[in-house]
């Protein structure tokens, strides 16, 4: 079985970051589908979950930070309101998922479901601060409902990718 060196881990973190950026950009083109500000499938969360489960929390934090920063630069939204909303949601979700992963018996699906819901809550909180109003909380029920299929699909996909990655790792 292969044990990862620091270089291995950095390369894998870079790959997960690239995956997250590509998924963020792809997802950005489908954001018009739902008339809810900030509602996305959260495909980029796959990269976060992969980093959290395959690497560690520290590298997952690096993956999330770089993913949010680089995709904002590529999409031309750096320091725009969507950048802060996206950062807030991603960080809240990452910290919550790390806590749930280490403190509860939840599987990756449960962690992903909770992460998706908390991602939306974090985004709403930051967006509400930006417009200094609670008007956005009207969307909370819809966003929470939407986080169920979103969290389930990202959790399921991540578990399948992790299974393949671990199989490959064991073979080396």
């Amino acid at each position, binding site marked *: 079985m292969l044990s990862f060196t620091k270089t291995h881990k950095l390369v894998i973190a870079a790959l997960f970051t690239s995956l997250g950026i590509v998924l963020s950009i792809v997802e950005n083109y489908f*954001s018009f589908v739902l008339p809810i500000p900030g509602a996305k499938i959260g495909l980029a969360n796959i990269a976060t979950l992969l980093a959290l489960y395959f690497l560690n929390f520290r590298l997952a934090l690096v993956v999330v930070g770089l993913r949010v920063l680089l995709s904002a630069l590529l999409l031309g939204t750096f320091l725009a309101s969507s950048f802060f909303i996206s950062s807030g949601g991603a960080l809240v979700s990452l910290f919550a998922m790390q806590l749930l992963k280490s403190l509860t018996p939840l599987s990756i699906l*449960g962690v992903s479901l909770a992460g998706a819901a908390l991602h939306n809550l974090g985004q709403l909180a930051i967006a509400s601060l*930006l417009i200094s109003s609670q008007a*956005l909380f009207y969307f909370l029920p819809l966003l929470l409902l939407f986080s169920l299929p979103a969290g389930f699909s990202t959790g399921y996909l991540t578990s399948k990718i992790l299974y393949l990655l671990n199989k490959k790792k064991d073979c080396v």
Partner: protein
Amino acid sequence: MNRQTGFIKKADLYVAVGILMLAALAYLPTFLSRQSNYKIVIANEQGSLYELNSQDLKAKGAFSYTAFAPGGNFVTFNLDPSAGVRVSSASCPDKVCLQAGYINKVPQSVVCLPNKIYAQIIPLTNKEDNLDAILH
């Protein structure tokens, strides 16, 4: 059971049920809202820009109101006595606010996040409600 297999555990179901319950709880104010009279507030992050109650809207008829944001950006709202308020055009890149359609129930809102401008339906205060009942 391996944490990474992805099979649903009982605890995962509790999370899903918890999210559903939270969503239902958050929807309660909209579900219970039965007010026929309301106030439309158009605002930005600094506060209210324009306010109009539904009675005045009926008297005034349909019209458009444009709220401006820094950098020549704008959001135009359509106010219609029979439908409520919606965003008809906006200078934002994503146009998510245009998809929201008309809102006409407390506490609905339509938000243009890039321009930080929103319209919200709020209940009339007792004073405002009483004023509507005064005959001239």
